[in-house]
């Protein structure tokens, strides 16, 4: 039972005699609008002012600004335990998520303190900690060394719902079966990450093609980077021979389909050194990408060198062309939007490496 005279149960501040409390008299929709312009730390403070403001501020929390300047690494430590480590980029501090669902500072990134005194969260605890993670905007999310199972996907789905527009990097993850892999890709697409960097994710070119088409449809000018470190014996299985070109054995994918290349043209950044694009289809895609006017780079392979005759037909009335030191530049007339690109031989090998840089000053 509570002691009526217990000082701790008295309101902590007295109503000031001077002045009128105008803000508490504002209607809820005004207060919600004001609070949605704050960040989570501000909302924590508002919650401590009064019951009414605290109640209204909680309604605003879903549209409140996230705290910025963090990166996040999620990895499996041992089975059913996750290691969730956050770096605060501006202060160079490292934090671990504890089993209590809060972050604990373990040191400056440069010196990396120890994390012996706190427990890593289990997957169930990590799911509960999603409310903590919800407060933060991560400049980069890194998924590393994870065995993807139902529980992890449950956590990841919760996590992704609250983190649109982030960039994600995915390395060394394993799937128990194909259905889990499919679900994982669906969650990635649903989350609308601004950019995705993957390593060794696709053992099937069709799956990659479908993923890239869907991703280019769901995020405008997304960034995509795929690094393949294929095992020697698996290479031959992945080669597809295009209509008119024979693919060399060290290149896993060949895509000659015009529709697919137009999907590539919607990417702001694109890097996949295992991909070969038929040069016949390339120029309309470059012109398309240039008209979207955003800085970015592309790197993949093409089937043959580009010449002026490829470029001239796509120029139309809005684009112009220059050629300097073997590099082609296409510009949007009367603007500073341009793309510079070149292709080159890797010693006696085909296809050619292709690199394009889009500028928009």
């Amino acid at each position, binding site marked *: 039972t509570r002691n009526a005279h217990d000082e701790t149960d008295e309101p902590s501040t007295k109503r*000031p005699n001077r002045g009128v409390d105008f803000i508490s008299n504002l209607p809820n929709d005004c207060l919600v609008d004001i609070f949605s*312009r704050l960040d989570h730390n501000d909302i924590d*403070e508002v919650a401590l002012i009064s019951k009414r403001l605290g109640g209204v501020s909680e309604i605003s929390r879903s549209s409140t600004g996230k705290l910025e300047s963090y990166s996040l690494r999620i990895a499996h430590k041992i089975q059913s335990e996750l290691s969730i480590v956050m770096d605060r980029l501006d202060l160079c501090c490292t934090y671990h998520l504890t089993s209590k669902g*809060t972050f604990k500072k373990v040191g400056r990134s440069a010196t990396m303190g120890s994390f012996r005194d706190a427990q890593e969260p289990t997957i169930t605890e990590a799911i509960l900690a999603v409310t903590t993670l919800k407060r933060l905007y991560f400049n980069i999310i890194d998924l590393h060394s994870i065995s993807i199972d139902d529980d992890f996907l449950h956590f990841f789905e919760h996590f992704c719902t609250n983190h649109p527009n982030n960039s994600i990097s995915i390395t060394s993850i394993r799937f128990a079966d194909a259905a889990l892999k499919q679900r994982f890709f669906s969650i990635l697409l649903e989350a609308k990450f601004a950019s995705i960097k993957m390593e060794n994710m696709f053992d099937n070119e069709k799956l990659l093609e479908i993923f890239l088409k869907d991703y280019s449809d769901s995020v405008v000018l997304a960034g995509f980077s795929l690094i393949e470190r294929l095992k020697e014996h698996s290479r031959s299985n992945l080669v597809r021979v295009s209509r008119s070109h024979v693919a060399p054995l060290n290149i896993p994918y060949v895509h000659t389909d015009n529709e697919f290349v137009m999907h590539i043209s919607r990417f702001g950044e694109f890097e996949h050194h295992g991909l070969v694009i038929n040069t016949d289809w390339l120029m309309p895609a470059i012109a398309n990408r240039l008209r979207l006017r955003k800085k970015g780079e592309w790197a993949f392979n093409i089937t043959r060198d580009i010449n002026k005759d490829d470029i001239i037909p796509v120029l139309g009335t809005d684009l112009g062309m220059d050629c300097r030191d073997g590099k082609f530049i296409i510009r949007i007339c009367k603007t500073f939007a341009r793309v510079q690109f070149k292709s080159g031989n890797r010693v006696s090998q085909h296809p050619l490496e292709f690199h394009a840089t889009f500028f928009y000053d």
Partner: protein
Amino acid sequence: PNVKLVTSDNEEFVVDFRIAKMSVTVSRLMEAMNMSETDDASLLSNSIPLPNVTKAVMARVIEWCEKHKNDEPKEEKENDKRGRTTHVVSDWDKEFLKNDEFGRLCQLMGAANYLEIKGLFNDISQTIANMIHGKKSDEIAEMFNIHCDLTEAEKKEIRKKTAWCED
């Protein structure tokens, strides 16, 4: 053509049709009363009652609208990547709002909300948010004369709930 607006304290304001149309609420009321820009008789014979706005506040609203009547219609600004609503208050608007004491600013916000004048509403909302941002709860309470009705035990509970990082 002019439109007559009548405040809660029975003051009549005669404003340009374009100014009146800046308020979604007034626009709707004019439509409901069949008042149109091309029909002078309909404008002369009717006045728009605004029972939620006082004369003093209405004068400020009209002053703001006069300044902004030629503005291009602004598209709703998307939230930034962190999910926060962002609105840049122009220098003129900052100066304009500085003239109001906080109580008047809140009344002006209430009026902008009722009249549905989005630009003015956003300006005031952002101004108040900027006053709160980065301050501790007791500083905010003191600044706005807010009476705290939470006990220390309740505050402790809230702090526990919102704790997310141990430094």
